[in-house]
C-alpha cells in the first residue's frame, strides 16, 4: 500500500524563505538551500517549494534558483509559482522539479492543465487550490496569493482540474493557513471525495494530531505543513513516528 506522505512546504519570497498567516504577515524563516540539506538528511518524503513572489508580481519563475536547489534535493520536489505556459512547465521539469504546481494560471487558462498533462503526463501536474470560507458560509477559490476572487467552488474546480489531467490536488485552506488550529477537514473530505487523484491537505497544522485527523477523516493522501516546522520544535520525522503509532502506513 502506498504510504501517506508528510511534506514540508517551503515558501520563497524575494531572497529567502518566509511564512505568514492567512497568506499575509510574512516572516523570514531562513535559506532554502539550508532547509533542503537538512530535509535530505532526515529522509523527508517529499518537498513543496512555492515562489510566492512570482505570481502576484507577475514575475517569471526563477529557473536558475530552482536548478541550484534541485541539484541538492534528493527527494521528490513539487515546484510552483509563476508558471504560465506549457513551455514554463517543461522548463521547470528540465531544471529538476519532479512535479509542477499551477494555481492562478490554471484558473485563468484551464487549457494549461490539459496541455501540461498531454506533454508531460498527469503524474507531474499538480493543481494547487487556495480556498476560503465566505461569510455566507459558501466556499470559494481565490488566486494570486489569496488576493483575487474567482467565483469558483473549490469542489467543482477540483473535479474539473482532475478531468483536465491534474494528477494531484494541493488544497490549502486560506482561513486555517498559519493558525495552528488544524486542517479544514470538511473541505478536504469534500474535495477528496469528488476526485480520484491524490489530495494533499495544507493549511492549519499545529500538531501531529491535526495531521492524523485530516488523513483519517479528510481522505487526504498527504499532509503539507510549513509553520509548525518553522516556528515550533515539531519535525516531519516526528510527525511520521506519531502517525505510524496511530496506525497509519508510513515510511519510517
Amino acid at each position, binding site marked *: *500500500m*502506498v*504510504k*501517506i*506522505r508528510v511534506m514540508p512546504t517551503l515558501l520563497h519570497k524575494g531572497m529567502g524563505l518566509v511564512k505568514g498567516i492567512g497568506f499575509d504577515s510574512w516572516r523570514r524563516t531562513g535559506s532554502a538551500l539550508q532547509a533542503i540539506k537538512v530535509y*535530505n538528511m532526515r*529522509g523527508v*518524503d*517529499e518537498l513543496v517549494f512555492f515562489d510566492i513572489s512570482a505570481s502576484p508580481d507577475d514575475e517569471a519563475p526563477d529557473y536558475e534558483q530552482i*536548478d541550484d536547489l*534541485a*541539484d541538492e*534535493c*534528493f*527527494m*521528490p520536489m513539487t515546484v510552483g509559482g509563476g508558471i504560465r505556459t506549457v513551455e514554463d512547465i*517543461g522548463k521547470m*521539469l*528540465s*531544471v*529538476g*522539479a*519532479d*512535479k509542477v504546481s499551477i494555481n492562478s494560471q490554471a484558473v485563468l487558462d484551464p487549457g494549461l492543465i490539459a496541455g501540461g*498533462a*498531454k*506533454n*508531460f*503526463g*498527469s*503524474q*507531474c501536474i499538480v493543481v494547487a487550490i487556495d480556498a476560503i470560507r465566505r461569510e455566507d458560509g459558501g466556499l470559494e477559490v481565490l488566486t494570486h496569493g489569496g488576493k483575487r476572487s474567482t467565483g469558483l467552488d473549490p469542489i467543482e474546480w477540483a473535479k474539473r482540474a482532475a478531468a483536465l489531467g491534474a*494528477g*494531484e490536488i494541493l488544497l490549502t485552506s486560506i482561513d486555517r493557513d498559519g493558525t495552528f488550529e488544524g486542517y479544514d477537514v470538511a473541505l478536504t473530505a469534500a474535495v477528496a471525495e469528488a476526485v*480520484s*487523484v*491524490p489530495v494533499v491537505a495544507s493549511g492549519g497544522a499545529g500538531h501531529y494530531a491535526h495531521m492524523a485527523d485530516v488523513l483519517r477523516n479528510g481522505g487526504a*493522501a*498527504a499532509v503539507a505543513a510549513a509553520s509548525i516546522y518553522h516556528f515550533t520544535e515539531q519535525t516531519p520525522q516526528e510527525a511520521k513516528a506519531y502517525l505510524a503509532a496511530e496506525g497509519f502506513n508510513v*515510511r519510517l
Partner: protein
Amino acid sequence: MSAVTIIDSGLSNIDSVARALEYCGADVVITRDPETVRTAGRLLLPGVGAFPVAMERLNALGLSDAIRDAVVRAERPILGICLGMQLLADTGHENETTLGLGLIKGDVRRLEKATPEERIPHMGWNTVEDQGGCPLLQDVPSGSDFYFVHSYYFAAVEEAVLATTPSYGGVPAIVGQGQVFGAQFHPEKSQTNGFQLLKNFLKA
C-alpha cells in the same frame, strides 16, 4: 570509476539523475548524439512525460535505433527510469497506441484501482518486493520503500518482472532481461535505497 551515458531527449530532468549517479561514484556523460549512445558502455534512459511525445523525440533524434544498436547488438547494460522503463516495451497505450523501443516484451497500460481507496496516479513511497534474486536489489533490505509517481504501468512478460509493488493488484516495479533493466520508481529520489540500486546498476 564506472561511466554512464544519460540519454537526454530534452524532455526530462537530467540533473537529479546525473547528480545521484555522480554521488554513487559514476562518471556521467549526458548526450543526445546517436553515435555517442551507440558507443556508450552503459546507458541510462530517464523519463518524465507522456509515452507518445517521448517516443516521437527519441525517433526524431535518431536515438531509438542508437539505443537498440547499443543494447541488442553490443549488449550494453541499460536502465530505464519511470517513463524510461515503460519505453522499453513493445507498445504504449498512453493517449494513443505508440510503438516503444521493443527491448522487453509487453505493453504499457493505464493503472486500474484494485481497491476503492486507491488513487491514480500512484504517487508516493511504496514497497518493492523482490521476485527472487533481482540484481538491482542486492544489499537493499527486503520490503524497502521507493518513490513512485505514474499513471501507467508496464505489463511486461512474467519472466521479465524482477520486482513488484503491492498496489493496483501488484504491478511491476523492476523489469529486467539480460542487461536491460527498468525501474518504475525513481531511484534518484529514493534516498539511501535508491542510491544502492544505482550502485548495483553500475556493477551490472
